[in-house]
C-alpha cells in the first residue's frame, strides 16, 4: 500500500489534516456567506430560468410551431440540445464511477460536483424530448402500464429505448450522488450551528453514524453502483446514437455512431467539468483541493477523447467514399460545401484543430487557456450535433422535398434558458451541499498521513 502512495503524486496539499479538510469544505456551506460572485452568477442564471419559463409557457400555449422546425427538418434544436446536454452529463458518471473502479484517487476532489453536473445536465436534457412532443401532457404514454386503450409502447422503437435509457440514467445518477452524500450530510448535521440546519441535514443524513459495519456495506454498495453505472453510461449514449443510427437516413445510418457518440459525450463532459471547476476553484480558493494536476489530467482525458472523436469523423468520411453510395457521398459533400458549410468548418476548428494545443504542457498548466479551450470544445460539441441533425435532414432523397432550417427566437431562448437552469441548480448546490466529498478527502488525507509519517500532523492549527 505504501509503495503506490509514495509513487503517486499526492492529489492534495500535504499540510491538510482530517480536521482541516472537514472544516474547510463544510465551512463553505455552513458559516461563510456566499461570495459576491455567487450572487452575480445566481442572479444571471435565475433570470435565464425565468426566460425558460416564459419560453415553455409560450410553447405550451402555441405549440411547437413557435420553433423553427419544419418539413424536412423536424428535429432541430430540441434534439441537438438533448444530445448535447446528455453528453455533458456523461463525464460526471465517468469521473465518479469509472475512475473509482480504476482507483484513480485524484478523482476524489472533483467527483461530487461532476456528479451534480451530471444530474442537472440530465434534467436539462430530459426537458427537450418532453417539450418536443407537441402534447407533453401525454408523456406518460411512454411508460408501459395497463391502460384502458389496451395499447402498449412499441419496444422495437429506439425512442422507447431512449426513454428507458435516460430514465434509468437519471435515477441511477441521483442514487449514486445521494449515497455519496450521506456521510457528508451527517458531517453537516453534526457541525451545523443552527437548529434548522441540524434538522434538515439530519433528516437527509438518515441517522448515519459511520459505524464500521455500515461503512463496510456502504463501500460494497458504492463499488457495486460504480460497477453498474459504468456499463450504463456507455449504454445511454449508445442508445441515444441509435435514435439516429437505426434510421435509414444518410448521415445517420452508420455503425460508427455508438462508439463515436460515447467518445463525444466524454469529450464534451470533461470540457464542461473544466469550464465549471476553473472559475469555482478560483472563487472559493480551492486550489489546494482541485490542484493543477487535476486540470492537467482532465485536459489529457479531453485530448484523448477528442482524438477518438476525430477518428469518428474520419471514418464517416472514409465510409462515405469507400461505400461508394451516391446518397452518402452527396450528404458529405453537402455537409462540407453546402449551405451549412459554416457549421461544419466551425465544428472541425472547435473540435479538432484548436484542442490540439492540449499537447503542450504549458497550455495544460495554465488555467486561463485551458478554460478557453474547454469553452471552444463545448461549442464544438454543440455544433457537432447541429451538423448531424440539420445537414442530414435538410436535403434527403428527393430534391423536391429539400428545405432549410432557421432557429427562431424561441429556439434560442429555450436553449439559453436550460443553460440558466443548469447554472442556477449548480449555484444552489454549491451553496447548500458540500461540493467536494468530505469523507473521501478525509480518507485520502489519512492515507497520505499514514504513508508520509506523523510529520503531517505538525501543520494542524
Amino acid at each position: 500500500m505504501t509503495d503506490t502512495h509514495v509513487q503517486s503524486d499526492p492529489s492534495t496539499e500535504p499540510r491538510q489534516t482530517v480536521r482541516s479538510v472537514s472544516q474547510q469544505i463544510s465551512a463553505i456551506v455552513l458559516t461563510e456567506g456566499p461570495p459576491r460572485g455567487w450572487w452575480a452568477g445566481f442572479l444571471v442564471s435565475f433570470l435565464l430560468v425565468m426566460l425558460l419559463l416564459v419560453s415553455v409557457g409560450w410553447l405550451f400555449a402555441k405549440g411547437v410551431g413557435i420553433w423553427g422546425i419544419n418539413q424536412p427538418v423536424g428535429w432541430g434544436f430540441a434534439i441537438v440540445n438533448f444530445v448535447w446536454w446528455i453528453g455533458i452529463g456523461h463525464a460526471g458518471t465517468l469521473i465518479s464511477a469509472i475512475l473509482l473502479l480504476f482507483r484513480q484517487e485524484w478523482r476524489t476532489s472533483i467527483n461530487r460536483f461532476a456528479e451534480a453536473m451530471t444530474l442537472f445536465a440530465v434534467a436539462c436534457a430530459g426537458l427537450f424530448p418532453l417539450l418536443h412532443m407537441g402534447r407533453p401532457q401525454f408523456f406518460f404514454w411512454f411508460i408501459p402500464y395497463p391502460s384502458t386503450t389496451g395499447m402498449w409502447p412499441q419496444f422495437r422503437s429506439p425512442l422507447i429505448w431512449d426513454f428507458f435509457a435516460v430514465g434509468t440514467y437519471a435515477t441511477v445518477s441521483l442514487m449514486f450522488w445521494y449515497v455519496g452524500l450521506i456521510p457528508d450530510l451527517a458531517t453537516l448535521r453534526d457541525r451545523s450551528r443552527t437548529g434548522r440546519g441540524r434538522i434538515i441535514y439530519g433528516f437527509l443524513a438518515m441517522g448515519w453514524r459511520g459505524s464500521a459495519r455500515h461503512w463496510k456495506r456502504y463501500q460494497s454498495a458504492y463499488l457495486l453502483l460504480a460497477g453498474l453505472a459504468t456499463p450504463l453510461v456507455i449504454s445511454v449514449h449508445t442508445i441515444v446514437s441509435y435514435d439516429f443510427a437505426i434510421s435509414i437516413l444518410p448521415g445517420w445510418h452508420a455503425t460508427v455512431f455508438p462508439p463515436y457518440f460515447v467518445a463525444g459525450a466524454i469529450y464534451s463532459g470533461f470540457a464542461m467539468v473544466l469550464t465549471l471547476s476553473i472559475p469555482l476553484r478560483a472563487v472559493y480558493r480551492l486550489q489546494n483541493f482541485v490542484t493543477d494536476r487535476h486540470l492537467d489530467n482532465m485536459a489529457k482525458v479531453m485530448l484523448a477523447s477528442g482524438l477518438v472523436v476525430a477518428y469518428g469523423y474520419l471514418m464517416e468520411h472514409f465510409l462515405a467514399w469507400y461505400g461508394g453510395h451516391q446518397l452518402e457521398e452527396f450528404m458529405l459533400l453537402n455537409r462540407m460545401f453546402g449551405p451549412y458549410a459554416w457549421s461544419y468548418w466551425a465544428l472541425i476548428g472547435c473540435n479538432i484543430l484548436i484542442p490540439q494545443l492540449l499537447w503542450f504542457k504549458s497550455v495544460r498548466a495554465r488555467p486561463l487557456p485551458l478554460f478557453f479551450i474547454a469553452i471552444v470544445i463545448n461549442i464544438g460539441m454543440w455544433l457537432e450535433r447541429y451538423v448531424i441533425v440539420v445537414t442530414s435532414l435538410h436535403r434527403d432523397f428527393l430534391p423536391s422535398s429539400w428545405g432549410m432550417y432557421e432557429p427562431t427566437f424561441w429556439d434560442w431562448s429555450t436553449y439559453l434558458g436550460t443553460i440558466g437552469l443548469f447554472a442556477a441548480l449548480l449555484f444552489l448546490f454549491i451553496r447548500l451541499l458540500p461540493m467536494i466529498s468530505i469523507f473521501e478527502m478525509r480518507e485520502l488525507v489519512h492515507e497520505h498521513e499514514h504513508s508520509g509519517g506523523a510529520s503531517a500532523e505538525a501543520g494542524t492549527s
Partner: protein
Amino acid sequence: MKTTQPTAGLLAEFGDTDALIAAARRLHAEGYRQFECYTPFPVEGLAEAMEFRRTRMPLVVLCGALLGLVVGYGLQYWTTVIEYPLNIGGRPLHSWPSFVPVTFELTILTAALFAVLGMLGLNGLPRPHHPLFHIREFSRASSDAYFLWVKSEDPQFHEQTTREALRKLQAQEVWDVPSEP
C-alpha cells in the same frame, strides 16, 4: 454524565485508527461480540478486526439484477407477443434483438435500486434516534474522532471491568451511553 438508570453500554474515544483497530481486535479476542466502532471515513482493516468480513450486499444486488432481467424481458415479450401483437413489416413478433436495450436498462435500474435500498436496509437506516446521539462529543465521529461502543447487551459486559479494559486499551475518554427511553 453519571446516571443511575441502566446504561446502554460504554462509549470510548481513541486517538487514532491504529489504536481503534487494536482495541477492536483485543475486545473481540476477549470474547466481546456486541460492540461497534465509529469512524469519520472507512478505515481499512477495522471491520476485519471485528471479524465482520462478508456483507450480503453482492447477493442483494445480484437478486435485483436478475429480477430486472426477467421482468424486463418478460414485460416486452408479453406485451409484444401476447397482449398487443403488431405486425411491423412482417418481422417476427418475438424480435428479441430489439428487446435487448430495455432489458439491459431495467437490469441496471433494479440492481442499483437494490444496492441502495439494500445498503440502507441492512444498515438499519433511516434511523433518526439513536442512544449515541445523546452524547454530545459523539458529533465529532463525523469529523475527526474515532469511537468504540460496547453495548450492555453483551454477555461479557460489566460496567467496571469493561471500563477498565477500555482504559487499558488506550481509550482517551469513556462515557456512559444512556439507554433510549
